[in-house]
Structures are given as C-alpha cells and as structure tokens.
C-alpha cells in the first residue's frame, strides 16, 4: 500500500531543478572550498577535487543519474528499473548531507565560517537546490516503513530485465565487483576521521538509493544466475586488493579484517545455522593462536619445536576442536539464555587460565600476561612470508603475503560453510534452531549435532587463529576478551554475524568488515569513539533489522508475497477433489 505525495512544484519544473542542482553540486566539487590546506584532503584547489569533495562529486553524479533515469530519459533507464523518484531523493539527501557535513567540519576545525571560500557556499547551496527539487518530485510513501516510508520497497514488482547475452551479464558482475573493490579500498585508505565519516554518509545513502532504484535487485538477479562467476569475481576482487596498495600500511588492516571475518563466518555456523548463542567464541581463536605459537619455534615457548606450516595449522585446528568438544559436551545440554551465560563464562575461563599458566600461579606454559612473543614468520615450501616479494613488478610486503594466505583459508571456510549448510547436517542444524523437540522427533540426535556444530565452529576459528599468531608476532591473553573497544572479541563477532545477516555467507563477511573499520576509523574521536560506534550500531539495526544481507529464506518470504494469488485456486481445487 503506497501513496504518492502531491508535489508543490509542477513536475517538469521539479525535474529541471533537481537536475540543475545535481549538476551544480557536481561542478562545485571542482571549486576551492576553503583557503588553507590545514583541513585534511586539501580542498583549496580550483579545478581538481580533493578529499571530501570526491564524495560530494560522487553523490551529485548519482543524484543526476537517478533523476534522469527515473524520469525515463532514453539510454539511462537501466539505472532505475523501479522508476521511483524516492531513489533520487535518497541520493540528493546523501549529497546534501555529505556536503554540509564537510562545510561544518571545515568551520569547526578551522574555527568559524570565515574559513569557507565562496566555492563552499556554492556547493552547499547547490546541494540544497537538488534536495528541494527532489522533494518536489512525486514520491511514494509507505505507511509502515522507516523515515515516512520513503525507503521501503515498492509494492510493484520490477519490470522484467532486458535479456542480455551471458558474456555481457558476466562482464556486469565483474564490473560490479571492481566497483565494490574500489569502494572498500577507498574506505580502508581514507585518511583522517572526517573523510571516513563522509565516506560512511555517502555510502549509506548511495546504497539506500541504489536499492530503492531497483539496481541492487537487478544485480542480485544476475549474481544468482551466475553463481560461480560471482564467487570467483568476489575472490578475485579480494585477491586484487594487495596489488592496489602502494604500501603495506592498509594491508595490515585488511589481513586483520579477513581473520575477523573468517572467525565471524565460523561463528555463523554455531549461531546462524544451529542457533546456539555462543558468547565465548573468541576463546577458540585464542586456542588456535596459542597452539600455533607454542609449536612455532618462538624462543619464549616452553616447547622447543618448530612445526612446518601444514602441521601448525592442523595442530591449531585440532586443538581448538578438542576444546570445542570439551566445552560443548557439558554446556550443550542447556538451551537458550543459559547456554549463552555458560559460554560467556568459558570464554573468560580461557583468558584467565592463559594468564595464570605463567610459572608462578601455575605451570609455565604461556608466559602469563606477557604472552608468547617473537613468533617467527611462516615458511611455506621455502617461501618466506615475512619478506617482501615482487609479483609482476608490484612489491608485495609481509602483510600482503599473509593477506593472500588468509584469503585461501577464508575460501576454505566459505566452501565448508556453503557445502555443509546445504546438506543433511546443515538442514538438521536449522531444524534444531527452529524447534529442537520437533527435530528430535524427526530422528535427529540433537546433542550430537549441536556438538558437531560447536566442534566445527571451533575448528574453523582455530585455523584462523594459527595465522593470526604469526601475523601479530605475539599472542597475549588480553587479545581474547569478551568485549573491548576494538575487534576481534566475542561481542564484536556476534555483532558481525547479527548485523551482517544470520545464516548467510556474505553477511558476516560484510558485517565484520564494517565492524572492524568503523571503530578503527573513529579512533580520532578518542573519548567519544565508543559512543559514536554505539550510535552507528543503533542506526544500522534500526534501518536494517534483518541484517545487511538478509538470509535467502527471508528473501523467499518477500518473494512469496506475489505467489499466493496464483497458488490459492490450485489448493482450493485440491481440497474439493479430496472431498
């Protein structure tokens, strides 16, 4: 049920105002906004955008594109399959928000409005003109949606997509992932807090606008059609990341994101599939890391052995799995909240035990709070991951090596998750999550399968832990807490799974990336960092309660809204035939 707003300004005029505003916003990014290069990003150059101006430029162009496409401009209609001006409005709001955010940031940082050059005022005015125009366009409202129902999906199904040759569709998917890689790289490399906040604002509104325009749905149609190409392109884009970097500075962030995301995916087996709320999951990452550190040949390790890479990974995985079984066997008899409390306790027990195995309060195994330092770099088949190597003329540093190794492990985890999730075992897990009593009545040994989920999750986290130990040189007990300002920790892992989308593969990966980047880039707020992060989480959950990437089953639910109309007569006929 949607209603259309009645525009104040007649439609042709509104269109022209929006388009002119969007063009002016885009153009204003080329002007000087301030007089001094003290503001990060150098916004003083006329004729070339810098820093935050790129974001205004992008948002302005997007507004223009969507405004023209939604008005049915020939040649641009592909950009807005839903023909909805709500998308235009969202883009215009994004452009205005990021522009005014920049102007305010300049004034606050440099001390007063006097620091704005005329170019800045032009940009601010232009973005408001575009916003005014977009508000006067005919908009659909949904009575029960967020923000006056402007973002809610339209009731009308999208018109059928034009048939393209399959090579063109594959090219589109690859292009989409290339854009995705660029967007993520931009966020990772964003210097300074202002640029990152502006990036978040632009990204949020751009994604909302593209979703509302129907373009994301089109893309999803393509990716489901060419599943293997999509997976391949996703990993190719991820593998291309280190090659896009000039220094190792941001690959070190990326490798940590990858570790965090892989562990989140492992947790998704436990939480998302089997429905077991595990608040101490970080302990398994710690078990894997400690196991790898002990057999790494570090001089601080009481065991003076140096395992080869494959054996170290196997050790970490197996030891973590054994811990999973040992912890799971007594705790998995509990359900729901009780399980959550007990796992929380076990997570803390792990950390405290590692602290106490220091030679004074217990046998010396882990060096207590000092941890195990000086873990040597991995050597795989004579290849030293600690040294920089040149591939095709591009220098890949230490973190790039580890990034690519970790990516391989992520691929394995993704493969395990997708194959197990869609099998007899995975179905049994989902059945247990849905209704354990009914699942047992179907012949499922609930306890055994829950233990299996726990052990598999622990095993995957342990594998990631072995790499983490080598990447960070040192393992200490304090890396494995329940909650902290920075990931990875149990609370963040769970948040990544829930924010990203439970039971999906891409959900926790996306969620983990965001949860890693946001607090890291908000560090400039110092005391207010956690407050800002909390607000960001609340906004995310308010806008997308089902997670950033909803489950296939939830998609099915949306999809099914159109089906019953045809299905009901068939059912009625069946009933009559039966009678």
């Amino acid at each position, binding site marked *: 049920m949607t209603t259309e707003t009645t525009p104040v300004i007649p439609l042709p005029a509104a269109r022209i105002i929006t388009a002119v505003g969007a063009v002016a916003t885009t153009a204003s990014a080329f002007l000087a906004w301030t007089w001094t290069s003290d503001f990060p990003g150098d916004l003083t150059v006329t004729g070339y955008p810098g820093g935050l101006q790129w974001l205004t430029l992008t948002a302005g162009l997007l507004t223009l594109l969507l405004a023209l496409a939604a008005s049915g401009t020939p040649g641009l209609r592909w950009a807005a399959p839903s023909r909805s001006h709500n998308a235009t409005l969202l883009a215009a709001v994004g452009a205005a928000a990021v522009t005014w955010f920049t102007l305010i940031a300049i004034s606050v940082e440099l001390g007063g409005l006097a620091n704005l050059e005329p170019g800045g005022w032009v940009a601010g005015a232009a973005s408001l003109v575009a916003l005014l125009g977009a508000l006067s366009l005919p908009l659909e409202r949904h009575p029960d949606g967020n923000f006056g129902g402007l973002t809610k999906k339209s009731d009308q199904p999208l018109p059928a997509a034009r048939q393209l040759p399959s090579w063109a569709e594959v090219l589109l998917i690859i292009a989409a992932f290339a854009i995705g890689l660029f967007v993520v790289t931009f966020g990772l490399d964003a210097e300074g807090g202002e640029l990152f906040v502006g990036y978040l604002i632009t990204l949020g509104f751009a994604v909302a606008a593209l979703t509302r325009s129907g373009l994301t749905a089109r893309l999803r149609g393509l990716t489901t059609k060419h599943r293997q190409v999509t997976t391949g392109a996703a990993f190719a884009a991820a593998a291309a990341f280190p090659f896009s970097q000039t220094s190792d500075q941001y690959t070190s962030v990326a490798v940590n994101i990858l570790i965090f995301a892989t562990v989140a995916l492992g947790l998704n087996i436990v939480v998302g599939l089997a429905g077991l709320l595990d608040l101490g999951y970080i302990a398994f990452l710690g078990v894997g890391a400690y196991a790898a550190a002990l057999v790494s040949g570090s001089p601080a390790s009481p065991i003076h052995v140096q395992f080869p890479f494959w054996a170290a990974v196997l050790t970490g995985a197996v030891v973590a799995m054994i811990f999973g079984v040992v912890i799971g066997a007594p705790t998995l008899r509990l359900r729901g909240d009780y399980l959550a409390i007990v796992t929380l306790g076990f997570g803390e027990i792990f950390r405290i035990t590692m602290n106490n195995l220091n030679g004074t309060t217990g046998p010396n195994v882990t060096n207590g709070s000092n941890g195990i330092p000086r873990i040597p770099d991995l050597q795989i088949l004579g290849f030293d991951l600690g040294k920089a190597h040149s591939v095709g003329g591009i220098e890949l540093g230490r973190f790039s090596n580890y990034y690519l190794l970790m990516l391989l492990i992520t691929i394995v985890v993704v493969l395990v998750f997708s194959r197990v999730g869609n099998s007899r075992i995975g179905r049994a897990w989902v059945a247990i999550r849905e209704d354990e009593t009914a699942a047992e009545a*179907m012949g499922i040994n609930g306890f055994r399968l829950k233990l299996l989920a726990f052990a598999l999750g622990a095993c995957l986290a342990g594998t990631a832990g072995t790499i983490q130990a080598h990447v960070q040189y040192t393992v200490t007990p304090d890396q494995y807490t329940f909650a902290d300002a920075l990931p990875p920790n149990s609370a963040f892992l769970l948040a990544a799974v829930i924010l990203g989308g439970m039971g999906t593969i891409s959900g926790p990966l996306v969620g983990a990336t965001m949860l890693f980047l946001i607090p890291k880039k908000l560090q400039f707020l110092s005391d207010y960092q956690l407050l800002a992060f909390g607000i960001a989480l609340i906004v995310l959950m308010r806008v997308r309660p089902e997670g950033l990437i909803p489950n296939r089953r939830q998609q099915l639910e949306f999809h099914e809204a159109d089906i019953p109309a045809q299905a009901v007569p068939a059912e009625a006929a069946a009933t009559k035939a*039966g009678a």
Partner: protein
Amino acid sequence: MTTNTPVLEASGVIMRFGGLTAVNDVSLTVNSGEIVGLIGPNGAGKTTFFNCLTGLYVPTEGTVSYKGTVLPPRPHLVTQAGIARTFQNIRLFSNMTVLENVLVGRHSRTKEGLFSAILRGPGYRRAEAESREKAMELLEFAGLANKADHLARNLPYGEQRKLEIARALASEPGLLLLDEPTAGMNPQETRAAEDLVFAIRDKGIAILVIEHDMRFIFNLCDRTAVLVQGQKIVEGDRETVQNDERVITAYLGAPLEGTSTTEDSQ
C-alpha cells in the same frame, strides 16, 4: 485386513509428575494394518501417553515396545526404530521450505556425515538426489508438490497439517502417531484428512490417532480406546465404546441423584 502381529505394545505405562498421575497403568496394543483411535475428555492424558510412547517423556513405570523390541526413551531413537509422530499444535520448521521440512524427516534414513557433505563425492550426490526424489513423492502424496519451495510458515493451516504428516512419513515409519490431525479443520478438510489416513494405512503403516471429532474416529478406526483421568476405561469397536456408560458419564457428566434419567428409561 487386520493381521494380528502387534506393532506397538505399551504395557502398564504410568507417568507421574510429582504427585499427579497423568497416565495410570495404560496398556495398549496396535496391530499391523490397524487404525486405532484414542479419545477422551480434555486433560485425560492422551498427549502425555503419546509423549511416553515417543520417548519425549520417560515413563515412571511400564515399557513400550515396537515390533517386539523395547524402545529406549529417547525421541530420536524411537523415530529411528520406526515410530513417527505429528504434534497437537503444529511444530513445523517454519523458516524452512516445504521440501526441506520433508528432507529433515528423512534424517534417520540417511547417513551422510560432515565429511561427505564437504567433499561432495558421487555417493553423497546419489543419496541427496534419492532423498529429494522420495521427499517429492511424499509431497505428491500429500498434495503439496506444487508448494515445495514455499516457506512452511506461509502455508495455510490445513496444508501445514498435511505437511506435518508428510514429514513424519519421510522417516519411513511402521507406525504413525497422529495427535489431533483435524483440529481446527472444516468438515470438508476433515473428510480429505480421512482419505489421507486411509491412504497411509494402505501403504502398510499402522496408525494410532488422538482425536476429538467422533465422526472422524468412528469412520476410521478399527478399535478405539477411551482414556479418562489417565486411565483406560474401555477399548473396543464403535458399538462398545458408544454404548459404554462410563464413556457417556465422562463426556456428558453423571446424572444428578434423584433426577436420574438413565435409570428411568430402563
């Protein structure tokens, strides 16, 4: 049609919850090819008795045996042995598709483990394809084949009941326990359910059914047992049960002293 090999033998089943005896010394036999009804007023202990049979409750006393072997009181082992059940208040896996629900029902008849799922060898694929084929056959049988990809929770009520039966049949049971299969159905749907129960019986599956709809029970059942306050008061064919005074008393209440009508009419 009824042969006399017993499929289910419950003997002296007693279930106490603290001071309350919910099921008191109930013995019941179901022979192969039989449809047996279990009726009784609300709170008589019918569902509790079902739960004792399926291992959901551990009976305080008494044994339950299936085809001569005593069943361990664990639900999944009972299902593995060959007893399937449905629930009084539908308990489908509501966020799974119709087909997936039935595939879960096949869990005890397949054995592909974690590693074969990861490796996806030819054996795994064959077993998975076979499972899907059998599940589709069952959906066809229950008249739900065209809804295989729908979410279970989006099915109308009557079809959810049918799906629960199809899911139970997927475990290839020798005995099916139905807990109020027609609750909330209109007469037409009830008639369709009767046909379905007969069709299941014709597959060679014995059935024990709890029901409040007397017409349904007497149309279907070869024998009917009546449970009142945890005790089996009578068991027999339609005539025996309908004319039993204790049954009438249990359902309609005892006549008041002095204004007794039953004695007058005799």
